[in-house]
């Protein structure tokens, strides 16, 4: 009993005071206190350790600022992290804000590199753009769905609620479950843009966040139709998930067809600069287009460039 308390007392500098041994039934309290004390000490030690061990920012650090598309940003951040390990004196700072902000920031010099998930418009052709990957969208249905292909018009009518039964497009007699993406997702924008739709005209039964949720929803519902990144759809379909990628305008939906440019529902992911890149900016762009980041591109379900 006494031994279980004395370490705490010694810590607190109270060893000279005798313990009152008469009340001897509550060992739990001092032990708990001791435990709490030790936990706090460890916490304090850990805190001070982390604070101490963080190296102070070196004055020679070069900062590389990227702003723009939220589609490109996660990939750019991953590439940046790897770039930093190769160039310890460089800090890569990635900020999102949409493709247009990326282009504008690059032009105004607010960012070293802008990120845009689209090709440059004609009014922007004074800038330099470098494609680091491609992004494609595939329409997916459940594998058990007999519908083999849908025309552009049929997809538009399904998504606006004009067609509500698979029978009308060559499937079985069952209501269609339309799966749409949540507002703000770049996949949604590309999809709406390609089919000339307004989001408020779309009549969905399910709204999803990420690609995985879309794939699981379609895999679990034989009458669902959805759209997700081609990379993730092809991967899942090839690994036994019961989904089917529908061809679009006669072109098979595949990573290969996105890469060779024949698949219509696709876009480039670009890095944009104001002037001919030089120095560290050129190093970064070359690195982002190199074979060294290929698995980073694939991990985000984008399509790497053709070699």
């Amino acid at each position, binding site marked *: 009993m006494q031994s279980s*308390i004395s370490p*705490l*007392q010694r*810590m*607190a*500098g*109270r060893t000279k005071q005798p*313990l*009152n041994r008469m*009340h*001897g039934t*509550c060992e739990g*309290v*001092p032990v708990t*206190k001791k435990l*709490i*004390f030790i936990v*706090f000490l460890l916490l304090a030690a850990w805190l001070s350790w982390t604070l101490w061990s963080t190296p102070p920012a070196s004055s020679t650090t070069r900062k590389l600022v990227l702003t723009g598309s*939220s589609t490109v940003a996660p990939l750019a951040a991953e590439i940046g992290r790897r770039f930093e390990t190769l160039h310890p004196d460089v800090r890569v700072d990635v900020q*999102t*804000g*949409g493709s247009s902000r990326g282009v504008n920031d690059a032009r105004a010099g607010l960012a070293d590199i802008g990120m845009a998930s689209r090709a440059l418009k004609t009014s922007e052709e004074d800038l330099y753009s470098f494609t680091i990957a491609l992004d494609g969208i595939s329409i997916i249905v459940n594998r058990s769905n007999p519908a083999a292909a849908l025309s552009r018009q049929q997809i538009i009518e399904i998504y606006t609620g004009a067609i509500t039964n698979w029978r009308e497009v060559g499937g079985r007699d*069952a*209501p269609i*479950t339309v799966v749409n993406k*949540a*507002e*703000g*997702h*770049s996949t949604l924008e590309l999809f709406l843009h390609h089919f000339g739709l*307004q*989001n*408020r005209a779309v009549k*969905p*039964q*399910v*709204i*999803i*966040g990420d690609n995985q*949720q879309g794939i*699981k*929803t379609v*895999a*679990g*519902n034989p*009458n*669902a139709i959805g759209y997700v990144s081609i990379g993730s759809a092809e991967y899942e379909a090839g690994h036994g998930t019961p989904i089917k990628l529908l061809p679009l305008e006669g072109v098979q939906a595949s990573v290969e067809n996105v890469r060779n440019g024949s698949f219509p529902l696709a876009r480039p992911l670009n890095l944009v600069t104001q002037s001919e890149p030089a120095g560290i900016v050129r190093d970064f762009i070359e690195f982002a287009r190199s074979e060294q980041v290929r698995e980073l591109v694939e991990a985000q379900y984008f399509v790497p460039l053709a070699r």
Partner: protein
Amino acid sequence: MNWSKLNTLFPSRADQPLLWLLRLCALTAATVVLLILTFLVIESRPALRDVGIARFFGDRSWHPTEGEYNFMPMLSGTVYCSLGALLLAVPSGIAAALFSRWYAPASVAGLFRRLIELLAGIPSVVYGLWGLTTLAPLIGRLHAPGTSLLAGILILALMILPTIALTADAALAAVPQAYLRGAAALGLSRWGMISGVALPATRSGIATGILLAAARAMGETMAVLMVCGNVVQYPDSLFDPVRTLTANIALEMAYAMGDHRAALFVSGLALMLLMLAMVGAAGLLSRGRRYA
């Protein structure tokens, strides 16, 4: 307590460092909550200023990229999901507590309690995944599309059941033996003892548990995001998809900018205020008679 004779009025000097550490920790916890509130207010101010509070209730729908900000359908989704889950989980949770305390044999009761604790420890994303791959297709066979208000209610009920069962169980365990012996001495049946003595004596404890569970149901994000279908609408039936406020934030925050982003913070602020009101209510209730 061992040292109580020496320090009934003042903490002993040995306690001083601990006391200050504890004060520091309490202060940190309180500050964090206040900081979060402040942060929410600051982040939602652009929307409150540019859009105005009225439009969050009066716009036609929720299309933030097209300038429509009505989040009432999602508030109703949150309320429907939580109320439905409570309707299912409260009776079954209390029943589970009564069973393990007074009806099950000791060995079964212990095992049962462990199982309920295990249920409480399952991460919500696992519930969500199970709901998306198993529960939603099952409901979909009854009525398409399956991801629906009903799926959300069932998943949430499963998630908050352990909270209710465990708090009710703890409250029942704290009923003084004298009460129960008194009931036995009066010759009450077991159910008479439970309904006439034990449950009234634990009323505030159980109510606190229910409020905690309600708070968890309203704050739950991942699981409802996966099973509710997330269509912004007022549901006409249990089989209609709904979107909750938390799911809305999770779905759109990563890509939101400008007023859209600020509007999401407004909905977060609304949720936080709702939560504060509920926690406040729980505090008031538990201030009543208690036998712990």
